[in-house]
């Protein structure tokens, strides 16, 4: 449950690299050295975690969602721990795309880690403007369109709650960009497959599943919401079954489409679970809060886990759950 028990399963370095296990995975046209990615909003600029290990050990880093204008975000408290998870309401605090391009992207490229740029618009037009601003930018391997953020033209409901708004937001990006585009979807919909199909039809290379689930917690003594923003997004092990289900359903419907799976991944077995459900690669968010070494531990631990079970390639396990 805690990082305390997590650290005990870390094997030493020599043991962690058995020969003959192929960790490489494909996200459409992009090949990554391993399937462990940092999830958006959970890795800041990259420099913070590079204090603990070389971030180029990761398959890729998905950066915090960037908006056209800088955002200061919401008041505190911005987080509340809940059973086996946490709620957050950060409000997409970020320096804005321009400043990120100037200050943070060069560092990531210099560090040599494949970088996936996450973008978030308030409107369909803003998604288009963000994509145009990225058109001549060299370096990122893909774009993640965070369409599970509020659409100010639709009473702040998230783009990814409807097929039409999903299609419009994704199309605004794929129309202008040559990079692979992954649409990041919310699990809080009745039919995730229909939303994923709408994203695919609008030109998305693949989808990222799942964003946080909307939630709320109340301080019963003070009769106040525990988050300043009242509601927030639930992440961590508490949502892992939701993520496994969403990935499984979408992979079943569109077996060839790449999927970045995420939600509550903490252990090597959790990575394998999402891959078996159909994820091409697996992103890790909240586990990095629990343990700054979490993503590296997974990269180190995965080959040994696979080798001990006679597997030679992680990609071979994709969607390999029997049913």
């Amino acid at each position, binding site marked *: 449950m805690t990082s305390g028990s997590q650290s005990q399963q870390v094997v030493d370095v020599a043991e962690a690299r058995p020969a003959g296990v192929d960790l490489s995975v494909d996200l459409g046209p992009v090949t990554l050295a391993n399937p462990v990615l940092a999830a958006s909003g959970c890795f800041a600029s990259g420099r913070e975690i590079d204090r603990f290990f070389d971030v180029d050990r990761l398959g890729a880093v998905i950066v*915090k969602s960037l908006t056209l204008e800088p955002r*200061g975000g919401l008041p505190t408290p911005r987080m509340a721990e809940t059973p086996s998870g946490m709620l957050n309401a950060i409000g997409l605090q970020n320096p804005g795309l321009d400043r990120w391009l100037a200050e943070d992207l060069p560092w990531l490229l210099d560090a040599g880690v494949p970088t996936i740029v996450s973008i978030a618009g308030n409107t369909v037009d803003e998604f288009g403007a963000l994509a145009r601003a990225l058109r001549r930018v060299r370096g990122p391997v893909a774009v993640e369109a965070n369409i599970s953020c509020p659409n100010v033209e639709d009473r702040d409901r998230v783009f990814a709650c409807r097929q039409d708004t999903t299609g419009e937001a994704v199309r605004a990006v794929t129309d202008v960009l040559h990079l692979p585009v992954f649409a990041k979807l919310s699990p809080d919909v009745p039919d995730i497959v229909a939303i994923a199909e709408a994203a695919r039809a609008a030109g998305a290379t693949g989808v990222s599943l799942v964003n946080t689930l909307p939630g709320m917690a109340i301080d019963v003594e003070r009769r106040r919401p525990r988050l300043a923003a009242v509601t927030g997004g639930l992440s961590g092990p508490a949502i892992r079954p939701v993520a496994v289900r969403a990935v499984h359903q979408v992979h079943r419907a569109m077996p060839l489409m790449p999927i970045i799976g995420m939600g509550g991944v903490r252990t090597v077995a959790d990575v394998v679970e999402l891959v078996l459900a159909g994820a091409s690669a697996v992103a890790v968010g909240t586990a990095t809060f629990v343990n700054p070494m979490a993503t590296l531990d997974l990269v180190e631990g995965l080959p040994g886990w696979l080798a001990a079970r006679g597997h030679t390639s992680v990609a071979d396990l994709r969607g390999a759950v029997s049913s």
Partner: protein
Amino acid sequence: MSGAAYRVSAAAGRARGRDEGPVQETGEVMGSRRVGPYTLLDVVAPHVAVRVLPGQFVSVAVDGPETLLRRPFSVSGISGAPAGGGIEIVFETLGPGTVWLAGRDRHDAVDVVGPLGRPFTAPPEPAPCLLVGGGYGAAPLVLLGRTLRERGLRVDFLLGAATQSRLLGVMDAKRIAGTTTVTTEDGSAGRAGIVTDAMEDVLDANGSGAVYACGPMPMLAAVSEVAAGRGVPVQVAVEESMACGVGVCWSCVVPYRRDDGVANVRACLDGPVLDGARVDWPTLRTWWAGGAQSPELTP
């Protein structure tokens, strides 16, 4: 960047990191004792211990059926240094995490990440220093007081709490300080009232030219305003609810006046020690009152 740049420390369990900056390390509890309502835990964590400076904190993994996140604590002391060095934390038992920690015994393993955040820094000009602590907020101040004394600076303490039993560090303070002034809200020890009631007098009596404070956020606001009102530089160690402690989640922000405008800075990375004159206390007070609006910010 080159390959594996970390160490595996057989002695301490696991410590992987660089020569500078924070590490993750499995520490070993060497002692646990009650200090009034608080628990003092001595944890051998040599890689953290050699790096830590006054005002920095550690985040400790806690176990429990439903807990997930680490808990942040100021480092209050260094033990057994330099080799086999330990760190001390002093904490109040509040919820599941601190209850679990208070139950640790000698030789139990405790997973620690640290040192985290920016430490206190020496005053811009050599001057007598006033260290103001509220409740367990006195924790990092004794370490700071010793460091300032080693630099040849005069140190005075002003320590407050709700009641006598909740005062922390008074005896340690008396060992290093020129003067130690105590306030309690119920008058059970020292002057009746809160630290800011006594602060003007203490500043006058000692000619203090720098203020350092740690304690509840409303106290830091009041202390900062008194110091700033007199033009005395003031450093405060702030406390915000933290999910990661290492700068990646943006949950711990404090509105802060930078040269280019007010920005929400991360308490765990840009703090916890901040310039009290630059913290945007009026905005924070609206947040504490449940005000939902954020000011125009430069992230």
